[in-house]
């Protein structure tokens, strides 16, 4: 075999073998959740990148139907504020359970997605983090009570999912605080408006926050006001198309006693 030392040496010296620690694995996980076409590979000059971003926003705005523009907001996930350390730790704790229960949440990428004002209270906050399998985990936090409730989901599935996440401050067999909200996810872009109908006939529009890649679903949160908190009475969440058609309807019942 013609493998003279000079050729081997030449090839070996052509590209040196680098040393040191490999770049962070979390960065690889983050890349895994973002479509390559949506991520800069670092070669576009800054000005061109800016033009692309502005152009992208303009296209996005043009593509959003008017009804969505009125009832929904579009949230750029990676441009959103990072969650505070305490919330990141809370997301990271999801990975400490039994292996089959771990959602693969990328806690370091948790973002503050939404603040929902409530009369006489501080705003409820929605935090969302991606998972390595392309899903997401979320938490609704009530700063007044210090309580939070959440879960994990996937971007594929039904057109809309609604529920009543709640949390209790339970100590020594006594309830010191309770919090509940009507909340859910929308996956079907045809749903442009969410209406919440209380048992007494009162109805409110609930805005949807569509979260960009790597999340790719819309979220809505509506803290239940004390005067509407009626145990055992159903509330209805209705998803409408822009032409007024009902696309999805869910009935929920508040089982937990009011504060």
């Amino acid at each position, binding site marked *: 075999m013609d493998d003279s030392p000079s050729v081997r040496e030449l090839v070996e010296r052509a590209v040196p073998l680098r040393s040191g620690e490999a770049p962070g694995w979390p960065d*690889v996980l983050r890349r895994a959740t973002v479509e390559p076409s949506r991520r800069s590979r670092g070669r576009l000059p800054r000005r061109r990148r800016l033009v692309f971003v502005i152009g992208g926003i303009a296209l996005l705005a043009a593509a959003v139907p008017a009804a969505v523009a009125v009832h929904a907001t579009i949230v750029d996930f990676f441009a959103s504020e990072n969650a505070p350390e305490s919330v990141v730790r809370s997301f990271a704790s999801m990975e400490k359970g039994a292996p089959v229960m771990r959602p693969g949440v990328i806690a370091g990428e948790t973002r503050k997605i939404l603040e929902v004002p409530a009369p006489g209270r501080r705003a409820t906050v929605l935090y969302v983090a991606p998972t390595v399998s392309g899903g997401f985990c979320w938490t609704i936090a009530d700063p007044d009570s210090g309580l939070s409730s959440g879960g994990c989901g996937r971007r594929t599935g039904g057109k809309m999912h609604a529920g009543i996440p709640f949390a209790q401050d339970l100590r020594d067999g006594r309830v010191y605080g309770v919090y509940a909200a009507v909340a859910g996810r929308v996956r079907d872009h045809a749903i442009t408006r969410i209406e919440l109908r209380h048992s007494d006939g009162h109805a409110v529009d609930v805005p949807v926050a569509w979260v960009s890649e790597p999340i790719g679903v819309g979220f809505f949160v509506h803290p239940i006001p004390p005067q509407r908190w009626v145990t055992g009475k159903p509330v209805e969440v209705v998803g409408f198309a822009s032409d007024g058609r009902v696309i999805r309807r869910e009935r929920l019942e508040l089982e937990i006693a009011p504060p």
Partner: protein
Amino acid sequence: MVREDNDFLRDLEAVYRLSFHRYLRVAEGICGDLDLARDAVQDAFARAIRFRASFRGDGPLEGWLWKIVVNSARGVPRANETPGEQAGVALSVDGRCDGPVGELVARLPERQRLVLFLFYYADMEYAAIADTLEIAPGTVGATLSAARAALKSQLEEVRHG
């Protein structure tokens, strides 16, 4: 399924931490730029996570990853070569390369370079190289011989030119 997923991700992370610099070396050879190569390797592992369902497990994980890394690096345009870098190779009195030796290799046709990198940097056998580059095993040997001959010829030219 979740357990398998977590095991797979752990294996992937272990390979990443253990072999990053070997992948980086091949990627740098292909891209011609360290930063682009680092980006390509990280992208390759991100792709491996996204498309992990396509790993059938009938071969070594490292082999599957080599294919993804090579494809990722090949997707990156080679870094610009400056006229100065193209000028040639400087040799010291004992004939060892002291100048930009990479340029001799960089002048080879792409397939020859890929085969050289996988053979010397990744320590891969012909069959594995053939699988990674999706060419016939016989082609690997022929390409390697052609690359060595071309390099020897270039070295002679530099020595006597």
